[in-house]
C-alpha cells in the first residue's frame, strides 16, 4: 500500500495530466477536476478493491462520480491504475473516443456508472449498496458528490433511503469546493450548515481537508468503520494548484489558452518539487 505522501504526489502529477488532456481537447472542466484530485486518487490507490485486468469483477468496490464533469480526473486515475493505456487519455472529447465529456460506462473499462446529469449518483449508489446486501457480497460503494449538485432534491431522497436501510456499505464523499458554474454556492443556493443537514437526515459526518491525503485516509477510514451510512465532507479548493484558477467560478469549464497553460504547468510542476 502506498504512503500518503506517495498518493499526494500521484494526485499532483495527475493534475498536470488532466491539464494536458483538457488543453488538447480545447474543452472540459478543469476546476472541478482539480478539486477532487486527492479524493479520487486516495480512493483508488488506498481503499478500493478493484482488478484493472478484470474491470467487471462482481466483488469489486464501486465508485460513482456523481459530479460527472470531473471525468478527466477519474480517467487519469483509472489509467494510472492500469485500466487502460495512457495514450487514450489524450483522445478526451474527440469523436469516437471512449473518453466522453462525461463518464460513459459502456465506452471505458473501470467506469461503474455513467454520469453527467447532476444529483443522480447517490441514488444509484444506494441501489448498488442494497444489491450487495441482498446478494451477500462484501463490496463497498463510494459516491463522490459535488457540493453544488446537492441542490438537486434527488440527493436528499437518496440520503433518506440510505438512512432507512442503514447502508453501512455506502460511503458518501462531498467535494466541498464552494463554487459552481454561476458563482459561489453560498450565493447561488446556500447549503447552509451542511453537516447538521446531513445529520438530521440520519447520515453520520466526518470532516477533513480534501487536499491532505493523510487527513482524507483517516476520515474515509472512520466513515467505513462507522456502523451506518456516513459522509465525508472534504473541504477543497476549486482549481486547486493553479493560482489564477483557485476558487474562481470562471474556471468551472473554461478553455485553457496557450499562455494560461504555460503558467499552470509551471505552477503545478513547481509544487512537485
Amino acid at each position, binding site marked *: 500500500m502506498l504512503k500518503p505522501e506517495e498518493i499526494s504526489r500521484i494526485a499532483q502529477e495527475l493534475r498536470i495530466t488532466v491539464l494536458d488532456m483538457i488543453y488538447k*481537447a480545447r474543452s472540459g472542466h478543469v476546476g472541478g477536476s482539480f478539486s477532487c484530485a486527492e479524493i479520487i486518487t486516495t480512493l483508488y490507490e488506498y481503499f478500493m478493491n478493484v482488478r484493472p485486468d478484470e474491470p467487471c469483477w462482481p466483488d469489486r468496490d464501486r465508485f460513482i462520480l456523481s459530479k460527472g464533469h470531473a471525468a478527466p480526473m477519474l480517467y487519469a486515475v483509472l489509467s494510472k491504475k492500469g485500466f487502460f493505456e495512457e495514450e487514450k487519455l489524450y483522445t478526451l472529447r474527440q469523436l469516437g473516443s471512449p473518453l*466522453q465529456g462525461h463518464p460513459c460506462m459502456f465506452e471505458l473499462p473501470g467506469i461503474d456508472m455513467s454520469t453527467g446529469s447532476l444529483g443522480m449518483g447517490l441514488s444509484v449508489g444506494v441501489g448498488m449498496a442494497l444489491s450487495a446486501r441482498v446478494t451477500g457480497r462484501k463490496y463497498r460503494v463510494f459516491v463522490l458528490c459535488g457540493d453544488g449538485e446537492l441542490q438537486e432534491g434527488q440527493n436528499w431522497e437518496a440520503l433518506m433511503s440510505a438512512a432507512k436501510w442503514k447502508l453501512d456499505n455506502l460511503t458518501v464523499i462531498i467535494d466541498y469546493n464552494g463554487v459552481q*458554474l*454561476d458563482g459561489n454556492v453560498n450565493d*447561488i443556493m446556500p447549503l447552509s450548515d451542511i453537516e447538521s443537514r446531513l445529520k438530521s437526515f440520519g447520515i453520520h459526518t466526518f470532516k477533513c481537508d480534501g487536499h491532505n491525503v493523510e487527513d482524507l485516509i483517516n476520515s474515509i477510514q472512520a466513515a467505513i468503520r462507522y456502523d451506518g451510512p456516513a459522509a465525508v465532507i472534504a473541504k477543497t479548493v476549486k482549481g486547486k494548484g493553479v493560482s489564477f484558477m483557485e476558487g474562481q467560478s470562471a474556471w468551472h469549464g473554461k478553455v485553457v489558452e496557450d499562455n494560461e497553460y504555460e503558467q499552470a504547468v509551471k505552477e503545478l510542476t513547481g509544487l512537485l518539487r
Partner: protein
Amino acid sequence: MRIESLREAYGQALVKAGSLNKDIVVLEADLGKSTRSCLFQEAYPERYFEMGIAEQNMASTAAGLALAGKIPFIHSFAVFASGRAYDQIRQAISIPGLNVRICGSSCGLSDFGDGSTHQALEDVALMRVIPNMTVLVPADAVETRKMVEAMAEYKGPVYIRINRNELPVYTSEDLQYRIGGIYTIKEGQDVVIFANGVMVSKAMEAAELLQKEGISAEVVNVSTVKPLDADTLVEKAKRFKAAVVAEEHNIMGGLCSAVAEALMVNNVNIPLNFVAVEDKFGTSASNYEELLEHYGLTADNIYNKVKKLLA
C-alpha cells in the same frame, strides 16, 4: 452570410422584453453564463431568481409566480429543462396552462464536447406531446429575438430551444413574425425542404447544390413545431413533387413526425423523407460541424434524400 450567436441574441432579447414588461421575471438553474440569462440578471437583479442546480423546484416555483401574475422565463440546458423537470412542467405548468416560458439552451448537438448526457435530441418530442404547450425552434439570431418578443405577450406555456453556437442569419429583420407562422426562406418549384433550427442553414446549402443540377428547391422554416399550421403546410407541400423534413433531433416525435402526420391526414401523398438523428444518443466531438456530419445532419444528406425521392 452573416453569422450570429443565438444564445447571445436570446439573452439580449430577454433584457429588452423585461424593459417593456415589468411582469417578466427570470429563473435560472446555475447555467446563466451559458444560457445568457445572466444579461437579465445584470439589468434587472430584483426580477432575477438564481435557483441553483434544481430544475424541478425552478419549474414549480415558476408556476407559483405565474399564478400570482408574473411571466416567468425559466432556464437550463434543453436536456435538463425538458427532461429533469418534465413532471413539474406537465402537472404544475401545462395542465393549468400557465404563462411560463421554458428556455432549453444548448439544444440538439450544439453542446458538442459534453457528450450524450448534455445533448438534447428528444426535447421537442417531449414538449410536443404535452397538451397546451407551444414549441418553438428558431433558425437564427433574428428569429430568436422575434420569438422572445412574441413570447412575452403570448398566452399559455411555451418551450423554446436555443442553439449554443453562431449560425447564419436567414430571417429578415422586416419579417412580421407571429408564433405559429411558417416562413419561406427561399422559393422553388420542384421540391420542398421543411426545416427548423440549424437545419435551415443546411437546407439552404442543399438547395444550392440542387440548383447546380437544375433542381429548384423551396426552403421553408417551420419554427413553430406546435401548434403546427397544418393548413399552410399542406398548401405548400401540394405544389411540389417531393418533400424532405430536416431537424436536429431524434427522427421520432419532433418536426419530422409533425409534418408527416399533417400531410398524411390531409391526403398529401407526395414522396417524403427525413434528415434527422436516427434514434441515437449524442456523443462527444471536438467541434459542432464534425458532430452534425457524424449524425448525417448535412446539406449533402438532404441533397441525397431529395435526389432519391425524385429518381
